[in-house]
Structure formats: structure tokens, C-alpha cells
């Protein structure tokens, strides 16, 4: 009985973890191309979820149909953010860049709430509520869909990085000065990575919005996305998937075990501890490049 309970926690955790990977992939895409750790990814996810709802309400269509429209809008938003806010800070110390993404985070969250209000809203993607039975295990269908979407995004990005544009992005990630000197437009590449990351955020926002509700809580995905991104290695998309699985399982099992003992709220604690331990033991993560300056 106990074993099955923990197995169930592990399987659901793994699926949920893959949904964290969606947030993490957005962070990784931007970090790869421009070495900017995007602390506004949580806010982007939240904006995207509200955007899906807004399109669905305005046009009277199902949220699932509104998703491509929202994704297209977010694509433009991502480019705009890069062009207006981040491009001018290229070359400044990282602390200013971090502050800029924090400022963007505060700004986007507040603007969303000003327009659409802070009350929680439901987002129905048409995923049935009834759990999926696999043997004795109960599995949340929304998590399954989320996990599949995360894997699809992973495959798309793997394929994309083999196209001409993807190769340009990889070149920029590898050495942007060298790419500049051979005539690759680094600006366009970085803007594209922001746009793709905003599209990933749309998927993450819609899926998490359907699991939880659409409210300010979506921006809290930042900590989890960040932890997954660091654990997998900040410049590795495959790492984000594996780390998402690991963190999801660990978090769910630890929370299932510790919550009754410590009186709740251990999820955040486990995630924060994983982040600290990763940075202390293996700062470049599972698959990241080993070139982090150690002291």
C-alpha cells in the first residue's frame, strides 16, 4: 500500500516535473544564446496564460484554439522585450542584467493584474478531470498531456537546432564574437531565442493554468524552472528534461513524506535545497559546460 502510494507520487511527480521542464527550457534557450539568466520567465508564463484566456474570451473560442494566437502574440512580445530592454544592457555587468529581468518580472506581473484583475480564473483545455488508471496507479490526465507536450517541445527544439536558423543560434551560443565576425546577426539570433522562449512559456502557462488556476501563482514557477534549468545545466535543453524528471519525482516524494511531519509547505523548501546543493556540488549541472569560474 505504502509502496504504491509512493510509486504514484513518483509517477505524477515525473509528469509534473516534465511540465517544469517547459519553464526551464525557456530559461535555457535565452541563457544559451545571450548568457542572460531570465528571471522574468515566471512572469512570461503568467502573461501567456492570461493571454490565452483573453483571446478565448474576446473571440469566443475554446482556449485550446486560442493557444496558437496567444503563442504568436507572445512570440512578438518576446522579441519586443529583447529589443527594448535587454539589447541596450549588453556588455554591462550581470547584476544590472539580473535587475532588468527582475524589473521586467515585476512590471509584467503588475500590468497583467491591472488589466485582467487578480482573481483566480479557470482555464479549460478540454482535458477530462477523471484520473487515468494504470494498474493500481491513479494518474492525473492533465499531467500526462503536459509531459507529452514537454517532450514534443524537446523534440522540436532538437530538430530546430539542425535547421539553418538553429545552427546560427548554436553558433551564437558557442561564441558570439566569432559569430559576429563571420556575419551572423547576433541581435536577430538573441531576439529569436527570446521569442521562442516566450512561445514555450505559452505552452507552460496554458498547461499549468489548466492544472492550477490562472492567477499570480503562475509566476512562482520561476523558482522551479530555475532549479530545473540549473540542475540540468543552464545551457542544455536535454538536461532540462532530465532534471525536470528528477526534481519532479524528488519534490513529490519528499513533500509526500515530509508534509505530514513538518506541517506543509515543504515543496518550496525541497526545491530551494536542491538549487543550493546543485550550485555547491556541481554548479554547471548535469549536462552544462564545465567552464564556470570556480574560485
Amino acid at each position, binding site marked *: 500500500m505504502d509502496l504504491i502510494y509512493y510509486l504514484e507520487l513518483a509517477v505524477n511527480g515525473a509528469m509534473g516535473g516534465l511540465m517544469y521542464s517547459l519553464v526551464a527550457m525557456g530559461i535555457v534557450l535565452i541563457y544559451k544564446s545571450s548568457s542572460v*539568466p531570465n528571471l522574468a520567465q515566471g512572469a512570461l508564463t503568467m502573461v501567456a496564460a492570461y493571454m490565452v484566456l483573453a483571446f478565448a474570451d474576446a473571440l469566443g473560442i475554446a482556449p485550446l484554439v486560442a493557444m496558437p494566437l496567444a503563442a504568436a502574440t507572445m512570440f512578438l512580445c518576446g522579441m519586443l522585450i529583447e529589443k*527594448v*530592454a535587454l539589447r*541596450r*544592457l549588453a556588455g*554591462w555587468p*550581470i*547584476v*544590472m542584467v*539580473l*535587475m*532588468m529581468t*527582475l*524589473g*521586467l*518580472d*515585476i*512590471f*509584467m*506581473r*503588475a*500590468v497583467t*493584474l*491591472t488589466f485582467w*484583475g*487578480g482573481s483566480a480564473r479557470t482555464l479549460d483545455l478540454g482535458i477530462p478531470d477523471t484520473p487515468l488508471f494504470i494498474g493500481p496507479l491513479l494518474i492525473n490526465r492533465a499531467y500526462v498531456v503536459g509531459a507529452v507536450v514537454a517532450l514534443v517541445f524537446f523534440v522540436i527544439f532538437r530538430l530546430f537546432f539542425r535547421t539553418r536558423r538553429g545552427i546560427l543560434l548554436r553558433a551564437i551560443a558557442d561564441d558570439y564574437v566569432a559569430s559576429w565576425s563571420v556575419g551572423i546577426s547576433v541581435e536577430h539570433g538573441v531576439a529569436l531565442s527570446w521569442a521562442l522562449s516566450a512561445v514555450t512559456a505559452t505552452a507552460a502557462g496554458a498547461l499549468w493554468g489548466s492544472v492550477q488556476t490562472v492567477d499570480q501563482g503562475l509566476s512562482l514557477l520561476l*523558482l522551479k524552472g*530555475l*532549479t530545473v534549468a*540549473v540542475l540540468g545545466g543552464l545551457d542544455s535543453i536535454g538536461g532540462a528534461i532530465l532534471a525536470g524528471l528528477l526534481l519532479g519525482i524528488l519534490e513529490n516524494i519528499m513533500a509526500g513524506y515530509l508534509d505530514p511531519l*513538518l*506541517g506543509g*509547505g515543504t515543496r*518550496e*523548501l525541497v*526545491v*530551494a*535545497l536542491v*538549487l*543550493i546543493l546543485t*550550485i*555547491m556540488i556541481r*554548479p554547471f549541472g548535469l549536462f552544462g559546460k564545465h567552464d*564556470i*569560474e*570556480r*574560485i
Partner: protein
Amino acid sequence: MFYRQAGVFHTDYASDSSLFPIRFERRVMLILLLLALAAPYLLDSLVLVSYVQPWLIWTSAVLGLNLILGWAGQFHFGYAAIMGIGAYASVHATRHGVPWELAVLLGGMAASVIGMVFAFAALRVKGLYLALSTLAMQFVMDWVISHVPAVSGGVSATLQAPPPSLLGLVITSEAGVYYIVLAWVVLVTLFMLNLRRSALGRAFIAVREKDFAAAVIGVQSFYYKLVAFAVSAFIGGISGAILVFCFYRAVTAEQFSIEVSIQLLAMTIIGGLGSIIGSFFGAAFILLLPGQINNLVTSLAQSMSLPLGPETLAHIPHVVYGAAIILVLLVEPMGLGKIYRNIRDYLMVWPYGYLRK
């Protein structure tokens, strides 16, 4: 203008390395200090208690954060947790009968000791990874503060802070509390000003610029990073204690959450890294601007009879807060302190602009 270096001849090292080498600035500082001392009699008590006092307390915390971020160059995304430790430690100490002055000092020391834990992250990684690990530590500290009943007095509990007292004399008047705050901020400001011309400050700057280069010229970067974390945590701890005793009058876990850490960072960076006058500007900017703009928007909306819902109005200060951070970083990434410096440098040689160094 008045801002002249003309006629200022330093004939000995002492006058050359004085805090304010330009006579005009020295006089301005004196006048400002007198104004600050007279403030309880000049200002409305509402303005004094709800604007000036929090501004001064936050400024002292920002100066502490500036020490670690602007001078020693170590990221600290968990400064609010440090302030919280100082606040909780001193409140618990006073509740157990420790005299107020000692309790505040104890708070500072407790913060200092735990602040060293943050330093151990700094001994292993730097830059972005240090930022992320201190951010995670803030979450852990938040959790510990709110979930350990011995610290917080139970989940979502509020601990009353007794009024401050000096040498057994309980201070209840607004002016008295204000003078405590003023004394602390003047003390921290003087410390920071003197840091510039002391060996400690120069060692911090050496570590900030390049830690292994500092090690090559004989500045132990390990040691100075630890010292920077400890000193800045001490300032932060006492500022947190004073914030609770003199302003909030009670302590809860939410007062020192991650948002507060980000707000402190915003104040420091908007003010200008390593800039002392910038810390004053930054704290005022982030603390006062959103509220003022909100008042403006509310009155505009009323005069033009625009229907703005209460929810919309509730979020406008945050929009302004975020936009202000973005705008200042776009216009002048070195912050308000740099803008002030530019104006000062301009006035210094006006109208002979070509003399500018």
C-alpha cells in the same frame, strides 16, 4: 557656480583625504544635518513618521547591501532574510528582558553569524551562481522563520515589539524614535564614507575587481569576502531590528520575504552600485515614487471621471515600480548616484566644460 574647486588648496594629506574636500559640499552637508536634526519640529508628524522615518531606515539597510554588492562585488539576493534574522533575534531578546540597546546589538550579531553561512556560497561560486544560491537561501530562511515556532511564535503569528528604550528610559515620543533612526543612518553613512579611504574598503574593491588578482597582490579574497558578508549582515541585522522596533512595531515573517529582498536590490541598483548618496536616492525613489504616482493617477482618474476599479488602482504602484526599474536601467545603468555625479561634475567646472576630467 558655488561648486568650485578654485581656491581649494590642500596643503597636507589630512585635508586632501577629508570626507568632503570641497568647502561648498562640507557646508551643504552641515546644513542637511541641521535640517535633519530639526526635522521633528519642521515637518508634519504624518510626513515624519510615514515617509522620512522608513526612508532613513531603508537607506541604512541599502547602505549595508551596497557594502556587499557595490563594494565587495558579491551578490546577495537574500538580504531581507538577514534583516529578518536581526529583527527576530532582537525582538526575542527584548521579550526575554535584555536591555534594548544590547538586544539590537545581539540582533546584529545573530544576523552576522548567519550571514556568514551565505558567505560559504561565495567561497565556492561567484557571479550568477552566487546570486541564485543566495536567492535559494532566502527561500530556506523564509521557510525556517515561518515554520519554526520557536522563531516566529507559530505559523503566521505576529510578535509585538516593545518600544525602544535607551539606558532603561522608554522612548515613546515620535521625535525620540526619529532621533534613534537618524543616529543609526548617520552612523552607517559615516562608516561607508570612511570605507572609501580605509584599507578595508580598498581591499573590498580589489576583491570586487578581480578576486585572484587581489590574491596575487596579497589581499586574501577569502578573508575579505567573509568580512564583507559579516559586516553587511551586521548592518542589515541592526537595520532590520530598528525597522521593527521603530516603524512596524511588530514582526511577522512576511515583512522579510523574497519581494523585500528584490526591493532592496532595486533600491541599491537604482541608487547606483557603490554610491552612498545614491543609496539615499534609490531608497527614496523606490519607496516613495509608486505611492506618489498612484495618488496622481487616482486624482487624475477622479477629475476626468474615468472608471478605474479598485483592483486596477491597487496594482498601479507595482506597474510604476517595475517601470521605474526598467527605465532607470535603460537611461543610466549606473543609477541615480551616477546621474548626481554627472551633474556635480558638470557644475564643478561650469561654464568651462572643456576642463572636465
